[in-house]
């Protein structure tokens, strides 16, 4: 633990930025055994300078190249908290290495839940569907709007979250019970519904064809909702069946 070195070490802003940029490759070597573990250890590598001896540096990498799995964007705040704890460990504070392990296990689950609901479900799925609806009415504005809005939220959490996590350190578990965060999670469902409605209305408006064809969309939506999961195949299998129904109707309806 840098004993006898007589120097205080500190994480610099540029270290945190490098960690944040490294987290953009968190899942580059995603695998069945360690999940995001390799990317996680590589992202934290800029912090290895906190340790002076070769043994300590090896121990640092070894304790992070273990199984790790959370929502990829939410790895930002976790990395910030871990940076703070590693800094304290490197400065000789007792019990900090154990605390690094405990804090990681404490944070990955709750933060994955928040990230999956807010970033994946609301921003990615709901936002993507809403943008598709906008695209049906206004063309390229749809995908551009989606890229800007999603990445504003995504990068704020994945890179900005590293600085936030470092600043708040131990307080993070308490901050996760913040009302604004809980509200953001609860907004996911309504945002998905608005996105789906927007794209359905957009396709209905722009698809042309005979007026009677309009009834096909709600009818297919009911079929899509109630189709048993084993026939679904990520939506691909059912969609191929929908293509065939559409082709049949195009052939037989004047």
């Amino acid at each position, binding site marked *: 633990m840098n004993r006898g070195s007589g120097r205080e070490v500190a994480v610099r802003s540029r270290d945190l930025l490098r960690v944040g940029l490294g987290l953009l490759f968190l899942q580059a070597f995603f695998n069945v055994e360690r999940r995001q573990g390799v990317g996680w250890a590589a992202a934290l590598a800029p912090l290895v300078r906190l340790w002076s001896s070769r043994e300590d540096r090896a121990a640092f*990498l070894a304790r992070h190249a273990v199984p790790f799995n959370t929502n990829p964007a939410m790895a930002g705040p976790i990395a910030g908290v871990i940076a703070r704890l590693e800094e304290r460990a490197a400065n000789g504070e007792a019990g900090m290495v154990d605390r690094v392990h405990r804090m990681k296990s404490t944070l990955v689950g709750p933060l994955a839940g928040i990230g999956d609901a807010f970033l994946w479900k609301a921003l990615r799925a709901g936002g993507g569907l809403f943008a598709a609806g906008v695209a049906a009415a206004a063309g390229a504005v749809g995908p551009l709007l*989606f890229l800007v809005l999603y990445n504003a939220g995504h990068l704020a959490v994945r890179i900005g979250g590293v600085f936030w996590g470092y600043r708040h350190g131990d307080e993070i578990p308490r901050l996760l019970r913040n009302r604004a965060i809980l509200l953001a999670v609860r907004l996911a469902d309504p945002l998905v519904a608005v996105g789906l409605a927007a*794209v359905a209305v957009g396709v209905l408006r722009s698809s042309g064809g005979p007026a009677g064809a309009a009834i096909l*969309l709600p009818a297919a939506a009911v079929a899509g909702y109630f189709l048993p999961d084993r026939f679904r195949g990520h939506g691909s299998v059912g969609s191929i069946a929908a293509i065939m129904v559409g082709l049949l109707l195009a052939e037989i*309806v004047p």
Partner: protein
Amino acid sequence: MTEGLLLIGLAAWAGADMTAAGQFMISQPLVAAWLAGLIVGQPALGLGVGILLQVVWGGVLPLGGTTFPFSGPASAAAGALAGWTANGAPDAWPIAFPSAWDLGAVLGAALLAGEAGGRAVVFLRRRRSLAMGAVDAAAGRGAAAALFRLNARGAGEDALLGVVIAALGVLLGRLLLLGAEARPALDGAWVALAVAGFGVGGSLRALGASRGAGALLAVSLLAAAAWRLLA
């Protein structure tokens, strides 16, 4: 030549963006298909198929490392194929759909290629587990550079897979479009509405939206369909 290189670059970027590098959502079907359409000079047709694939695949989230279709490169293939069906006709605004059989061929090829890509990702992730001995050895030496190299390898594999899947999509699409050439040019609206409707219902279920959200959606759908019928 330039068009081909740009499409290969887009497929590689979309493949890496799926999970390995950045996740800026270039790989979302709406974006990838639009960009491919833009490259071949038909952004409106690219957007049309992108919207439909977004509805079908938008609800599939990679939660907890689950399997998912390799949708980005497959959508890029669909956007390019849709653009090529225009045969140099002027671009429409804001979106357009190919004729029914062409649209069916393009979407079918993308869906099949995307599913094939999803299975290839599972294979890659299993194979990478074999390298964990090297990971432990590198960490034991304190060699962070070895971890960076593994990361670069993983991102490269995903980018290459993106190119392969997009090429598979284009090949399948070309074959299906050959069959579609023999069919009469029918209105693509039927296929578009069937796929969009199925996708809306499937996404609502996949995303586990609440009853209130489902009710809001049902009312919107019926109102929009009624408006279209009356108009």
